[in-house]
């Protein structure tokens, strides 16, 4: 599909908008509907669109599988790390109150970091899944 100029141009315009919307859903999740799961999937959709139009080989140079694997792990570590930090601060696992002096502030930081971890992992896993299935033919 990379020979079709209409698709290429539209894709190039759409991808930044999709990424921006994903970030909005991610960070506005504290106040309105949204959150890590949805944002992660939308974020991944931008990369999947890129892979559909420009091919999986091009997508793989943008996000190499080794990077995806690392990012998947890091998201999960961020999530579990927040829980462990609250344990180290003498509270229960994932008790956000312990993360700051003020419980409200602590909850805010906790939710923000946990949702970020979820978003990162979901996005990386979604892209990995797509590339794993779509790229199967290219492999020897």
């Amino acid at each position, binding site marked *: 599909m990379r020979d079709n100029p209409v698709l290429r141009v539209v894709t190039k315009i759409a991808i930044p908008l999709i990424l921006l919307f994903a970030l909005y859903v991610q960070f506005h999740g504290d106040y309105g509907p949204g959150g890590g799961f949805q944002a992660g999937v939308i974020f991944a959709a931008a990369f999947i669109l890129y892979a559909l139009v420009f091919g999986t080989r091009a997508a793989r140079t943008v996000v190499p599988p080794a990077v995806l694997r690392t990012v998947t*792990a890091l998201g999960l570590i961020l999530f579990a790390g927040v829980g462990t930090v609250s344990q180290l601060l003498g509270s229960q696992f994932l008790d956000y*109150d312990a993360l700051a002096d003020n419980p409200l502030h602590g909850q805010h930081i906790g939710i923000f970091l946990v949702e970020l971890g979820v978003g990162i992992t979901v996005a990386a896993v979604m892209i990995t899944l797509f590339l794993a299935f779509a790229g199967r033919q290219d492999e020897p």
Partner: protein
Amino acid sequence: MILNQLPALQVTLPLIAAPLCLLLRSGRAAWLLCVTVSTIALGIALLLLDEALEKGLIVYDFGGWAAPWGIEYRVDVVNAFVLMIVSGISTSVLLFARISAASEIDDDRQSLFYTAWLLCLTGLLGMAITGDAFNLFVFLEISSLSSYVLIAMGPDRRALTASYQYLIMGTIGATFILIAVGLLYLVTGTLNMADLAGRIPDLADNRTLRAAFAFLTVGMGLKLALFPLHLWLPNAYTYAPSAVTAFLAATATKVAVYALARFMFSVFGTAFAFDSMPLQLILVVLGTAAVLSGSTIAIFQHNVKRMLAYSSVAQIGYLMLGLSLATAAGLTATLVHLFNHALMKGGLFLAVGCMAYRLGTTRLADLAGIGFRMPWTTAAFVIGGLSLIGLPLTAGFISKWVLVQAVLENGWWPLVVVIVVGALLAVIYIWRIVETAYFRTVSEGRDDFVEAPLALLLPTWLLIGANIYFGIHTDLSLNVARLAADFLTGG
């Protein structure tokens, strides 16, 4: 301070180790991390068991949210006992896995293998420790999904179809459990097991509740391979990598049995499960059918792993017979057999793993004359087999003895006949292997193999030795099982 955090660490430690393991490139480092974490998990389980024996109940509220709203972990003697079995088996099998898995799995997949292992361990430990019905479903799926991956890594292409079959049946089972949890929530408005237990007695005639119980029993029956629902098990155990077979055979079905017992006795209560619902009849009939058919089919198998897999179906039958009695004695028999069967099947599958490592096959015909070439491996297998039959001075005898006593306490003597016939059938299938190993000569062109390396023999003998140890000293197994059974039926 760290003691208060133990219930959470039991699950979060392997959970955090899993992504770290994914980051490691070298299989050796991943293995080291996996063994370390599993050993620490065993230590935590032992500390928890000790604390539970002292205090009775340890409660941990996640995120600081109090019980009916938040997820709570409740550790009592029962699940601390199960936690000990799971983490103990995982640690001893992992010691075996380094060489065994390296021979069966590509180098670049080693760290993925250990990541899946850690996730499976997380799921199984989580299922045992949680006090929340929905949380139990989530951990069940974590352990199931990772066990499909582990099975699919087997060297034969049939591992893929076995894993696929298990995935379909396992997902149907898990979805049944999800329906059950949903119906429970619709009727009672709570997901906390202790809270559910308090609300169910008022609703004994509720039809939705009965449907929930039926869905739960069938769903758990699929996961624990209760007879007619066991079809996924033989293939999955036969084609999985040796270490995975030993790990799953000794833990996965056991945790599902625990979860079923937990729902039957402490969430729904004996009165609901056995008086309002015809569970007793179903469990007796299916348990008997499992013992007889599983043992009989095992006799006709040509693959040792498959033979042991059918033997597992039979052993699950014994566990169900113990549950069906609905008494503290019957539950004691089930729990002590849970422990002893984990030791037997763990040891036996590791011994078969040693043979597979040297011979590259587990077909019975290829094991001819192995008794003289691999004396230690074969001796381990024979002792494990004797324990499976239930010979005195082995752990298997203790289970059978306690079960027979419990059955006689209820006056159900026909079941004693079933248990004895099951043991006699076990003599036949174990004898077939003994005969092949000691009374046949090594087949032509197959005389190039020697005894398995020490690194494989040591973990095998660790579990086989435990079979003898717990056949003589029953302090840990029988007494704790008795306390746990009293706790479940009384509290």
